């Protein structure tokens, strides 16, 4: 009789040895580092989850929120930024995106100098952790500055920005928790020696829409997942590279021909700039999520990318509709 459990046992990629080995050098070193922490909140290495790399399966987000160690004084709901207020626009997405593409194509090419990419963002994500710790009582945006050159050297620095509280109870909970990530706290400061920075796309972005559609699909299964993945790809690209006007135009033209794209309306983004917000809805992540891109109405530049939960929060402790992540680019 073939037993599925026996088959599965045989497929164990790393079976338990009969006699478990004793701790090796590395394990002993880690043990003494842990014990020397005296049960404080600081771990030997701060592992920082890059908020900008948002948009993963809801299952992951759920398990992350369930992380043991969440402060017990936290309010019932996690703090999230307010939704963007929108003014309706009476254009179709395709027409508006083509208009923006035309504008972008006319922009002077002010991209990377000497091939050095400089990307500055303000970002926030519900799932951001520093050393496994979440700050659920406050919205702490991160001001991130990434710089990398043609030799793949670079630097990445992220500093906690201005703290936002949904209410007084949240502010009190944050103070009780010792004001984690107070404004100005450096949450990541990293340099990459030559060859060490790994951009998501190896080659330079093309400037025609057909080539751009192929380029964006590298590492992003847009045809399998749908337009939401195109939104993610466009955000990811902007997190890694400064686009020239023609490249930006190509992106906008790809978006203009994508299915299920709508115009949300005119907005002011998190940095107070006027923008045109377009969106697509997808439940690929497990929870119905609205993916929003905000473009500068005068230049076609991508100013912001956001993700909102629209119908249910699953196991996430947020009130829907809820912003679960945003990135605003400082050009």
């Amino acid at each position, binding site marked *: 009789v073939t037993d*599925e459990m026996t088959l599965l046992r045989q497929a164990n990629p790393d079976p*338990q040895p009969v006699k478990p080995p004793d701790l090796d050098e590395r394990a002993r070193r880690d043990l003494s580092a*842990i014990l020397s922490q005296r*049960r404080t909140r600081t771990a030997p*290495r701060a592992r920082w989850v890059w908020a900008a790399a948002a948009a993963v399966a809801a299952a992951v987000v759920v*398990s*992350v929120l369930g992380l043991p160690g969440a402060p017990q004084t936290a309010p019932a709901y996690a703090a999230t930024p307010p939704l963007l207020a929108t003014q309706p626009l009476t254009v179709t997405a395709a027409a508006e995106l083509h208009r923006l593409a035309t504008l972008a194509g006319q922009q002077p090419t002010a991209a990377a100098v000497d091939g050095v990419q400089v990307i500055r963002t303000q970002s926030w994500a519900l*799932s951001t*952790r520093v050393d496994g710790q979440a700050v659920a009582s406050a919205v702490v945006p991160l001001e991130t500055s990434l710089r990398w050159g043609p030799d793949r050297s670079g630097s990445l620095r992220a500093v906690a920005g201005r703290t936002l509280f949904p209410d007084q109870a949240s502010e009190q909970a944050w103070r009780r928790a010792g004001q984690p990530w107070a404004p100005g706290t450096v949450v990541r400061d990293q340099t990459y020696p030559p060859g060490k920075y790994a951009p998501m796309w190896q080659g330079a972005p093309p400037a025609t829409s057909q080539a751009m559609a192929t380029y964006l699909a590298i590492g992003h299964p847009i045809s399998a997942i749908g337009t939401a993945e195109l939104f993610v790809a466009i955000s990811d690209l902007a997190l890694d590279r400064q686009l020239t006007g023609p490249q930006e135009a190509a992106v906008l033209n790809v978006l203009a021909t994508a299915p299920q794209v709508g115009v949300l309306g005119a907005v002011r983004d998190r940095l107070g700039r006027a923008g045109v917000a377009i969106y697509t809805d997808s439940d690929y992540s497990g929870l119905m999520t609205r993916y929003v891109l905000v473009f500068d109405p005068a230049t076609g530049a991508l100013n912001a990318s956001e993700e909102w939960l629209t119908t249910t929060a699953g196991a996430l402790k947020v009130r829907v509709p809820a912003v679960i992540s945003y990135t605003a680019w400082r050009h």
Partner: protein
Amino acid sequence: VTLSRHERFTRTYRQYYWPVVRYLRRRGADEEEARDLTAEVFATAWRRFTSLPEDPLPWLYTTARNVLANSRRSRGRRWRLTERLAAHAPATAAELDLDVHHDLHAAMATLSAADQEILRLSTWEDLGPTQIAQFLGCSPNAATLRVHRARQRLRAALELNDPAPELEESHRDR
């Protein structure tokens, strides 16, 4: 003899260090990542040592799952790209060897992520229903039922002809 907290933690660490490393490696972490994340799991365990359950293993696995998810999240997009590139690379001998389990992997892939994890915990980590219940945060009865159903689904996917064994068999705790 009352052991100090340091001594008790060291004991726990010695006992469960390799199981946690293996748990992570079995879920795709490379050696360096598995070691890093294991340190993170135990750093969390140390901070919360007074409130760890009597059998800490399910808790350690849950924490390992979470730190792995965090790590994947931050690097997921890049990894996906790497995976894509790797898909076009010629298969190595080791990869061909893995192919022995191709049918099983294909069958597992048709199951939900939760079902897959329940089955792996039962076989690879050898957890019993009580421990799986702790991992899932449900009652042991519910865990037993979920293991049973996951097995049925795997059997169906494998197109094994024999009916799934009775519930009692999978109820045996370890």
